[in-house]
């Protein structure tokens, strides 16, 4: 078990290393004008060159990479250049991460609270109106690009219920719409999973047997069906939670939530390499941790799987 975790950790660190190196190199392909900002227009080429040199962009790529890893080793992510000049990346990210966490967790909790019971109900009433309604909702949310229905929600619902257009951390009402919008998609996928696994499970022979034996429907549902239906979900849950936490770029920008998603887009557009790097590090780590936790959860929930035998691929 320990050996397995250790091996997986080592593998993850290696993967992370490669990812960061790739992103680091990719970022160096961006046009250099971005580093100079609006002033580029009026600077002489020599002046531009001096600034670029001072930013370390004239060093060989390997040296730049080396410096980055040296910093990382010390627990620093460097300082921002074009997002918040000279401010440590860790400071910038730590300002944003709380919002993303709150919204991400809020949305996950909301979608679990709504999505799982919805899926159970749908499975229970398979083929009836609730199931159809739920299926319609799932199809809509999964198929239509989020950007489109987010806009419509903001457009009509703010008017309808007189809710604030923008997020304001002091105004409770302003939390409602972004949270709800954000929860729509995960709610749909939880409901979809739950329904599918429940239906699969309900079709199995042991359920028929139990029914024939006269086991109460309630007991059947909660003891047998749900427990087994949860097993496949357990594997994906950590990953989806982390995915939601890393923030929704749309929601954050539509409602002005100062979270990490918006930060990522901004940082890339402003070519703030160190911030992008920092975010990639965090996102990728979260992704890898998610995978790992998923496998772990799977192993804990499912008695058939034992850790130790080979790595599992999703």
């Amino acid at each position, binding site marked *: 078990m320990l050996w397995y975790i250790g091996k997986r950790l080592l593998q993850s660190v290696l993967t992370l290393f490669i990812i960061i190196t790739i992103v680091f190199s990719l970022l160096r392909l961006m046009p250099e004008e971005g580093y100079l900002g609006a*002033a580029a227009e009026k600077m002489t080429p020599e002046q531009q060159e001096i600034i670029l040199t001072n930013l370390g962009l004239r060093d060989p790529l390997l040296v730049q990479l080396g410096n980055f890893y040296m910093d990382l080793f010390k627990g620093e992510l460097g300082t921002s250049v074009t997002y918040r000049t000279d401010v440590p990346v860790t400071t910038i990210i730590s300002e*944003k991460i709380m919002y993303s966490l709150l919204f991400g967790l809020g949305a996950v909790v909301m979608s679990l609270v709504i999505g799982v019971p919805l899926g159970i109900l749908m499975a229970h009433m398979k083929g009836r109106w609730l199931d159809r309604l739920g299926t319609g909702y799932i199809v809509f949310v999964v198929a239509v690009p989020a950007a489109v229905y987010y806009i419509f929600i903001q457009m009509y619902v703010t008017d309808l219920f007189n809710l604030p257009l*923008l997020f304001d951390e*002091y105004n409770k009402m302003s939390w409602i719409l972004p949270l709800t919008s954000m929860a729509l998609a995960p709610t749909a996928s939880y409901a979809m999973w739950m329904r599918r696994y429940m239906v699969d499970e309900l079709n199995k022979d042991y359920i028929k047997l139990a029914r024939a034996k006269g086991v109460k429907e309630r007991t059947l549902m909660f003891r047998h069906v749900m427990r087994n239906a949860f097993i496949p979900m357990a594997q994906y849950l950590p990953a989806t939670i982390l995915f939601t936490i890393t923030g929704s770029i749309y929601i954050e920008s539509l409602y002005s939530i100062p979270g990490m998603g918006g930060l990522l887009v901004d940082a890339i557009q402003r070519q703030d390499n160190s911030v992008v790097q920092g975010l990639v590090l965090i996102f990728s780590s979260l992704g890898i941790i998610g995978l790992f936790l998923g496998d772990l959860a799977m192993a804990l929930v499912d008695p058939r799987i034992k850790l130790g035998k080979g790595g599992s691929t999703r």
Partner: protein
Amino acid sequence: MRKLWLLLLATVTAFVLAACSDKGDGSSKDEVSEYRTVYSGEIKTLNYLKTAEANEFAMSANLIDGLIEYDQYGIVQPSLAEEWSANEDNTVWTFKLREGVKWVTHEGEEYADVVAQDFVEGLNYVLDAKNESSTAWIATVVKNGDAFYNGEITDFAEVGVKALDDYTLEYTMENPTPYFLSMLNYVCFFPVNGEFLAEKGDTFGTTKETTLYNGAFILDKFESQNERVLVKNESYWDKDNVYIDRIRYKYNKEALTVAPELFLRGEIDSAEIPTSVVDEWFNDEEKKSQLRQIRNNFYTYFYALNFNPQFDEEYEPQNWKVAVNNKNFRKSLYHALDRVSAMLTTEPFEPESLLNNTITPKNFVDVDGVDYTQLAPLADISNTDSFNSDLALEFKEKAMAELDGKATFPVKMVIPYNSGSPDWANRTQVVEQQLENLLGADYIDLIVEAGPSTGFLSEIRHPGKYALLEANWGPDYADPASYTDPFTEGGTYNKPELAEGYTDANGKSKYQNLVDAAKAEMDPAKRYELFAQAEAFLIEEAFVIPYAVGGTGYIASKLNPFEAQYSPFGVTLEKFKGQRLLEEPMSNEEFKEALAAWEQERTEALANAGE
């Protein structure tokens, strides 16, 4: 078991929600004059010695005072300098500083006095290349500035700035600089407290705590992508002229989209109204009264004909080169461009008000109350619309006759735009259609191309990958020379020096010689006239097609723009000092009345100042 789970989840949700919202209502606005707005362009630093971005200028303009300022008519007024003088040839400028001006911290505590040495420190920081200042190129106007920046000189004492005593400051110029005063409102000439700077080191200007203030406002809150709050500086030397107590900038990535709605809901006090929704505002009685034009700025827009075409072979750059070197061809384009139709995409109601017939816009400089654009050689151009379809077709005939056999028709013209700007894209489509319709598809074939949204200049304009390109330029100091930079040798625009048949005996282009002569002249009246001649030549030969001035669009705002300090240079236009919040936003009619009155008053004020 399951109920427990749900209960737990519900509790967590409730807790999370409660925790986030418990901080209470932070905004109370009784009796304070508060100005609220949304923004989408984030500022990256408060370090005014480093930045060159408009958004950050807007911060430093209100947080830091420089030596001089302007009144609402654009006349220089004392600020931190109470009086000043220059020597005969405008190479040495001496300033007498105001006493008792304080540096304060973000909490409003006094930190130190503002003294002459602070200006020296500021310039030293800017000219030190390792600080990566983006405005150093302006500061190199002082003696040895460039040499120090490039590291040829290491002793800053040799640079042309000296604190003669605590309150006397002397600048020595590299060359005669009659317009030096107008440069002083640039952040690179702002003061900084040396001790504080040394103490903060690299963190200077990164947060509100690591910045010192001597301006009208102090930064109370600075959270990227969230909110910035400025509050009035109670220790400000001229605080009686600051009428707004608090300025709140709320971040919104979609500011452009939601700001109008927020304004209507009374959540903000100023919102730009995108062209696409202006109709709707004008059609609504209630909204209409809250909408007015934005005041023009000094950015000037023009279509540049490229003499160094480097675009893709498939579009025949050589053919374009032949065509563009024909004056009649250029003139046909010059007269064919219906600038009004292009402007309709951004200003559908009064497109003419933004058109500009010259490169230098009006109200920029004047000779004894006569505006530069009305000087003899330019007056004609300024007063007639370049669009003339008859003339255009006439020139087309001539060009086709002259170019017969030399160029292939239709001439392919690559006309790129920045894909980051939808307005630009729309305009380009309009121009393409309008020019082709007027001049005929047998004559020209415009190829609209989307350029990248970042690196547009280095991808498109600098390498010359265009035939016709909308370009703009903003002035740096109060002298027509400021508008010649794009077209003189070394400029990164359309390289008119490569035009064939315009080389003078000394090997330089005709335009270059005209500009050089003007630059050498020190008497303002003659100097400006020479510049006007050069500019008239540039337009007359149709190297460029002047198009418009900046400041397009409409705004709903509770600010009165005519109370604000006025000057094309530096950070002046961004200052809130002197402005009051109106009860009701100005309507467009009111705006026009006020504008007319202001122009009248300005002429008087300029004439008075001239005396």
